[in-house]
């Protein structure tokens, strides 16, 4: 793992596969379909990712590969160390610092401090894009049953996660827009009051 970003993005795949293997030995293609089923196909895996992850897990002693069957297919089984790794993963809360660096936050931070970049335009364009994404997620939620059947529970939870994340991003973008407007008002007119007449008269 060479960078923090790559580490955090790929972090959940080995643990996800190990978690699935606790139900019993599986082939690589089985693991891929089980992973996608459990996460609502939100993070599709290619089969190459699955096998390269299994190779690393085997190297680290967290899984063992069975002898290939007559068709050359190999099943993998979790080891005691692998089981411990899963227990530790579930027991340890995900820290903010473990998550990928946020490209949007970096982009806006740079835009706000770099001359010649329209930071407000970036906020507006991102807000429209995020709202469109949220509309699409809401459509999926709207079309799903209010009480999801057990087999859809994982997908429903992941969908809610994506919706709440988009809502939080929109809230943050509104906040950025207000802060940028205030900063601009301060830089052009140091005596501008915090509450303008417009805000008092019009809601």
């Amino acid at each position: 793992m060479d960078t923090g970003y790559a580490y955090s993005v790929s972090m959940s795949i080995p643990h996800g596969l190990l978690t699935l293997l606790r139900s019993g030995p599986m082939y690589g293609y089985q693991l891929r379909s089980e992973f996608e089923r459990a996460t609502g196909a939100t993070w599709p895996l290619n089969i190459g990712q699955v096998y390269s992850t299994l190779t690393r897990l085997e190297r680290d002693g967290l899984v063992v590969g069975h002898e290939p069957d007559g068709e050359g297919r190999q099943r993998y089984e979790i080891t005691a160390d692998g089981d411990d790794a899963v227990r530790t993963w579930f027991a340890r809360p995900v820290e903010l610092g473990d998550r990928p660096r946020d490209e949007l936050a970096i982009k806006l931070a740079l835009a706000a401090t770099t001359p010649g970049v329209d930071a407000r335009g970036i906020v507006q364009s991102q807000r429209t894009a995020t709202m469109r994404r949220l509309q699409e997620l809401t459509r999926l939620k709207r079309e799903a049953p209010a009480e999801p059947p057990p087999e859809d529970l994982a997908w429903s939870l992941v969908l809610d996660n994506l919706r709440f994340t988009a809502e939080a991003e929109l809230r943050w973008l509104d906040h950025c827009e207000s802060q940028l407007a205030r900063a601009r008002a301060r830089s052009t007119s140091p005596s501008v009051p915090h509450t303008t007449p417009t805000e008092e008269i019009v809601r």
Partner: protein
Amino acid sequence: MSQHAALSVIDVDRIHGRGNSAVHAVRGLSIEVRPGELVAVMGPSGSGKSTLLNLAGGLDTATAGQVLVDGVELGELAPRDLARLRRRKVGYVFQDFNLVPGLTAAENVALPLELDGAKARVARRQAVAALADLGLDDLADRLPQDMSGGQQQRVAIARAVVGERSLILADEPTGALDSETGEQVLRLLRERCALGVAALMVTHDAGHASWANRVVFLRDGAVVDDTGRSAEPESLLAGA
């Protein structure tokens, strides 16, 4: 003939005061809501959201520009005709429901029809039908104080769409409701829109706004974003 918009706000200014004290509540504002469409309006305090609703409902008058409801320009109507158009074409949904206490759900829904001259029996029949359309038959004889907030808001939607109304103006319709109940109300609003009614909904809740077909963002009295627009900026870098 092409179908006209249920609401057209065309290059509207609304200015309060004069001279140095003049304040633009909205400036150069243009929004269109078509039949079958639910449009959400978001924006910070002072962005002109309420002014937009008041202009659309004929409760306020544009200083410049045009506001058309169902193809009729409000600025050209005599007060009496404007009042009639408001009663017949526009339904309102408020954050705090505004059902009349002491009247049952059916009586509340029938009220705008009776105020418009319908006979009590006819109004009652239409009100009960409107409640039934929304799956609220069982509430017809209940008083507002005997209903939950979500039930009251659904009755308020029935009141807003009863008769031949083509435009619903909703001011924070989910503001007083918990998230789940708010979503039930939005589901209902969408269902009504799917049947051909147009709705303009002001909300501060992004999650609820995302139920709309289109989300429009206001700032300083003008539209700054619209999810219905397809174009994206070519560049946000100076000199690019």
